[in-house]
Structures are given as structure tokens and as C-alpha cells.
């Protein structure tokens, strides 16, 4: 079972995502933005960071990377993809997920331990959580406020595609949304960082590990 983690220029949490995949028992594979080949991985993580400095819009330039073409195609075929923070922004910019992420309403970078409720535990990345499971993982970002038009928000709620919601909104996200999924449940975007909550020595909890163990099961099952 191989989990690929893409490095874009300016990716920062790629090493951490690989570590988390390994802690969960997967083989972590480093993927390069300029290489369209996925090297046989079963699932992909788009990691956090400031790809291309986030100078234009977070994720706006990365989505044109050669590796993204393959990922978009494979995601359409059902391959699990998790975008964390900057990765979530790339997924929105790529239109794999609806909506967009804009500057935090307080306009500052924020780094804190954040409580969330898992609202959909049937995606490829959340099946190891209980329904309404409350977890605490790391939140750290500048452009973390999830926005979409009302119709889209209603549709996401109606179809149960809100994967996680903040308990105490830290950034102005519409309807407290911390993460969403596509119709099929294989592509998940999440603003907080589960990969920074996989060992108590360096993270606030180990609550983030479930994302990585979930996808192992999803891949084995498929």
C-alpha cells in the first residue's frame, strides 16, 4: 500500500505527511510536481505549505503542475486524494472540490490546536472515525476561510459532503466548514493538519492518524 505525497515548489508539510503515512503503516512515496507519473501509488496526499509563495492565490499556480493532470484523472476514477491546507486550496483551484479558501477573517496567520467534529465518516479518509467524532488536531494557515455561494453550501450539506466542522470557528469559514468531499467520497479537502497529530511527542494528540489508517482500509477494500 503506497501513499504518494506531492512536493510542489514551496510545499512545507510534505515530509510530515510522509511521516504520518509511514506511522499509519503505509509506504510513503515522494512525488514531484513536474513529474506526471504517480509511480504506482494507491492514494495521494497534497500537503500543506505555501506553494509558489501563495503569492497569487493559495494553490492557484500549483494546480497547473504536470502531476495534477494525472491526479485529476485518477481522482475521477476513484483514487483517494487528500488535500491538506494548501492541498485543499489546490483541490478547490483545480475544481475537484467546490468553493474556495480566502484570507482568514482576522487576516492573520493562526497556529493553534483546533477541535473539530467529523461529520461524514464514510469517505475514503474518515471511515476510522465514529459518527460525530470530536477530534483535536493542528490548525495553521493564512488563507483558511472556506467560502462558496449559498446554493453550493446547501448542496454540500444536503448531500452530507461536509466532512468536518470547526468547534469554534477560527477563521470565518462559512458554516464552520473545515473540510469537504466530492460526490464519490474519495477526494477530501481539509484545512487543519491531521499529519501533525500522529504522535504525542510532537503533536497535540494522535487524533489525526485516523485519516491515514482510513485510507489504508479503503484501498484494501477496493
Amino acid at each position, binding site marked *: 500500500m503506497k501513499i504518494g505525497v506531492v512536493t510542489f*515548489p514551496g510545499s*512545507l508539510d510534505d*515530509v*510530515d505527511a510522509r511521516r504520518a503515512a509511514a506511522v499509519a503503516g503505509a509506504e510513503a512515496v515522494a512525488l514531484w510536481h513536474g513529474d506526471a507519473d504517480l509511480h504506482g501509488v494507491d492514494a495521494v496526499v497534497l500537503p500543506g505549505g505555501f506553494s509558489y*509563495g501563495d503569492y497569487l492565490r493559495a494553490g492557484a499556480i500549483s494546480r497547473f503542475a504536470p502531476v495534477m493532470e494525472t491526479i485529476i484523472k485518477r481522482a475521477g476514477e476513484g483514487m483517494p486524494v487528500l488535500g491538506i491546507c494548501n492541498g485543499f486550496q489546490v483541490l478547490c483551484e483545480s475544481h475537484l472540490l467546490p468553493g474556495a479558501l480566502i484570507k482568514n477573517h482576522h487576516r492573520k*496567520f493562526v497556529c493553534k490546536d483546533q477541535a473539530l467534529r467529523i461529520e461524514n465518516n464514510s469517505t475514503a479518509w474518515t471511515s476510522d472515525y465514529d459518527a460525530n467524532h470530536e477530534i483535536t488536531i493542528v490548525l495553521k494557515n493564512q488563507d483558511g476561510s472556506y467560502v462558496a455561494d449559498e446554493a453550493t453550501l446547501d448542496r454540500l450539506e444536503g448531500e452530507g459532503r461536509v466532512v468536518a466542522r470547526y468547534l469554534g470557528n477560527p477563521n470565518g469559514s462559512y458554516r464552520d466548514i473545515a473540510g469537504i468531499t466530492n460526490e464519490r467520497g474519495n477526494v477530501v479537502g481539509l484545512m487543519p493538519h491531521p499529519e501533525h497529530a500522529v504522535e504525542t*511527542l*510532537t*503533536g497535540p494528540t494522535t487524533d489525526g492518524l485516523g485519516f491515514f489508517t482510513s485510507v489504508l482500509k479503503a484501498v484494501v477494500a477496493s
Partner: protein
Amino acid sequence: MSTDTVSNATSTPDVEQPWAELGLKPDEYQRIRDILGRRPTSCELAMYSVMWSEHCSYKSSKVHLKRFGEIPQETPAGKMLAGIGENAGVIDIGEGYAVTFKVESHNHPSYVEPYQGAATGVGGIVRDIIAMGARPVAVMDPLRFGPLDAPDTKRVLPGIVSGIGGYGNSLGLPNIGGEVVFDPTYLGNPLVNALCVGVMRHEDLHLANATGVGNQMILYGAKTGGDGIGGVSVLASETFAEGGPTKRPAVQVGDPFMEKLLIECTLELFAANVVEGIQDLGGGGLSCATSELASAGDGGMRVSLDKVPLRDASLSPEEILMSESQERMMACVTPENVEAFLKICEKWDVQADVIGEVTDTGRLEIDWHGERVVDVLPETVAHEGPVYHRPYERPSWQDELQADGAEKLPRASSGAELRDTLLKLIASPNLCDKSWVTDQYDRYVLGNSVLAQPEDSGMIRVDETSGLGVAVSTDCNGRFAKLDPYTGAKLALAESFRNVATTGARPVAVTDCLNFGSPEDPAVMWQFTEAIRGLVDGCKELGIPVTGGNVSFYNQTGETAILPTPVVGVLGVIDDVTRRTPIGFTAEMEGHQLYLLGE
């Protein structure tokens, strides 16, 4: 303006030169003429003036900093692999690992333009660390501001904090500690000190020198612009009249994305073993990099300045030599490795150009479109600057200050008064919770932050298997240092040492950033020498060396100097980070006993 070549300088000895505008003293200008046996060309004058400035030459502090050499150059953990004089000190921490760490100031730029000043301060110290061959793994930021409620603090503080966060967060470096201290003396002169820690394997250690005749000098990173060359523009003033003034910005804008690429690119260059020597371009730009690399080498160097890629085509050769454009590095590479070097840079989208080579002449020769504009012995630029023995004297007010003891203050006489005093203390900006600052810094990235705020020291895991790690703390109480600079410096050292020791790490080495007022004031100079004496004595008593640091003078508003602020950073080593001791009283400690140690 025609190019002022070496032969032109020889044939026109009496040309008036703007040495005073460039900050040189009459005797310094004469000394340059004596060294060269002729007048300097305008490019040479530019190089000497920058390299002989206080900032680059340490001319007021050199004689005193030498005393750090009296401390035994061994650390409790092992050898010092590089010490004062290198970009940053390097310490053996065992298991084949070495760490490097250094603190530097970016005070004045941060006052002028808080966000960019602070951001580029972080950028500069990080490049010092990568130049040693290390991967940067953490940053810290000791800060000083005027009173929290002063209007200018409202301008300065948010910018500085977001600049440090904006740059460090974008580089993916966890911020594992620092200080936020307020005092009226910092109102017109905030202090922004930035510390970076790096980790490497012993064999990856790289020193800054250019050796091996025929080796190529490669400049890589950002293009060169007119950044930070304010004063030197007088050299090109005639160009202004002709082409209309191209303004030369005094403020540099940082590009953390470029720097992140530079980190990854540089580490890949080291891993591929295609670099002989390397240096970052900081204050002094190419003047500094070329003269220091050449004088640390065994030959000479020839550089074609016209090969330097420019962001602003109107720059004169003098300005190119002086530019402090950020996010640039210079490497010495064997001819066989040039192609591999350029290929790695291309992979990371980093511009790289061969601009010169190592020669056997022992001289630093710089050409501009085929004409020689610099021909000097590189040591005379880099190391033979003026050395001042500035007068110093214990100020007359020191006795009065010391006599004004705290025991004369009224004491709380009732429970209610005591309660008020306590509430006042814990609500004071200097003592209150700092998360309003630290929440703007990423402390988790890289996944090795074992301790960060609100801990007394930061701690980073170096090896995931063995648990080897390092702890770092920075401290200084400027009020103590003003009362008694000798004891104040010792106290700063002792506090930092204790903060590291209490985590369970063994303190092994010191870096320091000496922030003081004007060295031309004998009272300030006295504070400075006393602080150094305190650090030297303290380090001897504790058995740990000073591995590097930085001096920042002229921190004052008019006649009022800042509190003497010798910020001390202590680094410790811990065999197994899982055995660290965090601060605080958590639920799992219920039933533990409390002891008070010391007198």
C-alpha cells in the same frame, strides 16, 4: 559616466572622490590609497567603504570580541567544528550529527519598514545556516519594543510580528521560542533579533572559501536589484543626471518563496557533492562574498561583473558590488561539476550564472565589460579594515542608579494590596501570556518540535530513531544589564543556561547578539566591554564556549541609548527527547511533590 578603471585611477590620482559621503574617515581613505599605492577606483572605493563599515568590519567591537577566544574552545558534548569567524558556529552533538546556530539583529531596517525589515532578518540568518551545509530546522525571535500603548508601537509591532511569521512560516521553519519585552528606551529603536538552528551530518560541513585554481564561481538565487545601496549611489550620481534618476530603495523586500527554493536547492547541491565552498550574500552583498571567499581561499579570484543577472538594467558596477538584494548565494564549483550544479538549480527554478573563477594571482580582480575595475588583495578588503580602541568609561550616573535599590520601594502591607500587585504583575505586557504573538507562528511544521511556546526552551528532535535532540533558549534582561552590565550579561547567560538545563538537555554552547547604543559614547562602550567580560567569565565558569553571534551598535534615539541588551542563546543536547521535562502542572502530574532548588 565612463567606467572608472584601474588604469584610469592610476593616471588620474587627483580626482576628488566621495569617500566622506560613503562614511569613510579621512585616515581610512588615506589607508586605502596606501594599500593600493594609488587612488581607488570608484568600484574599489565602494567595496572598501562597505566592508570597512561598522556592520561588516566590527571595527569598534573587534578588540573586545577577541576575548571570547579565551574561553576553552571545547563544548561539554565534544569538539567545536567551526567557531567565531565562520558564517555560524558548528558543534558536534554525537551520532555523527552536528548542529549550527546563530542569532543576528535586524533592528534598524525593522524600524523603517517593520514587516519587510523583520522578514529579511529571518531570511538573512537562515542563509547563514544553509551556507554551513546544514538544514535549517527552527527559528526563534527575541524582540524588544517601546511601551505597548505607544502609538509608534502600534505601527511597529504588528508589522514585525507578521514579518517574522510571514517569512518563517513560508519557509516551513517552526518557531520554537523567543522573547517579547517592552521598555520605553526601545520606542524609537525596536530590536529584532532572529536565531536559526540547523542540523547536518559531519561530512556535510562546508566552509566559506574559494580554493582550487580554475574552479568556477557561481552566483545563484534572486537577480540583483538596487536594494539597500542608498549611500553608494553617490558614486553613480552622474548616471542620474543623464538617464533620469533611478531611485535606489533603502528598503529590501523579502521573497520567502525564493528562499525556500534556495534552501532545498542548496541542500540538494550539497547532497550531490558538487560544491567546494559557499557563502550567502548578506550585508555587503557581492563585495563581501567575493572578498571573503577569496581571502579564505588559497589563490585569487577573477569576476566578470557584467555576468551578474540584474533586475534593474540601469545599475552601475559600483551598485552591483554593493547591492544587498536578498535570497542570493555564491558557490565555488569545480569545472567538471558546473553542469550538474546548473541542472539542480534548474530543477528548483533557481537562476544560476558562472560569474568568475579562482585564479593563482592572490588578487581579487573584477572586470566590467572587459575593463578592470577592481584589482586588490582580498584580505585588505575583508579583514584589514580599521580597528578602533574606542574610549570607554563607567558613567558617572552608575552609582546613583545602583543606589536606587528596589528595597526602597513601598511594600504591600495587606492581602488586598498584595493581590493588586500580583494582578498588576501578571497583566503587565512583559509578563503576560504571549500567545497573541506566538499563535501567528507555525510551531508544528517539520514535525520535530518537541517543545515550543509556552515552554522555557524550544526543543527539536534531530534523530527520529535514537531520539537525539537539541534545546535552545534565548534570554536577556536589559534592566539588569543597565544596572550592572557585567552581572546583567552573566544573568542573561545563566537564565538561558537554566532554561535549557531544566528541559533535561545539557547546555553546550552559546551564541549572542549584543545590542547597544552608540560606540562613540564612552558610557555605552563601557556597558559593552563589561557585558563581554561578564559573558567571558560566565562561560568559563559554566564550561561552554561562544560559537558566534552578532553586534548591533547605534541603537539609540537621539542621545538616549537603549537598555544594554546582550541577548544570549544557549544550545543544549539531549540524548532522548522522550525524556524531556515540560513546564507546567498537568493533570497527569497529580500527586507529584514540589521542591524548591537553590537558595
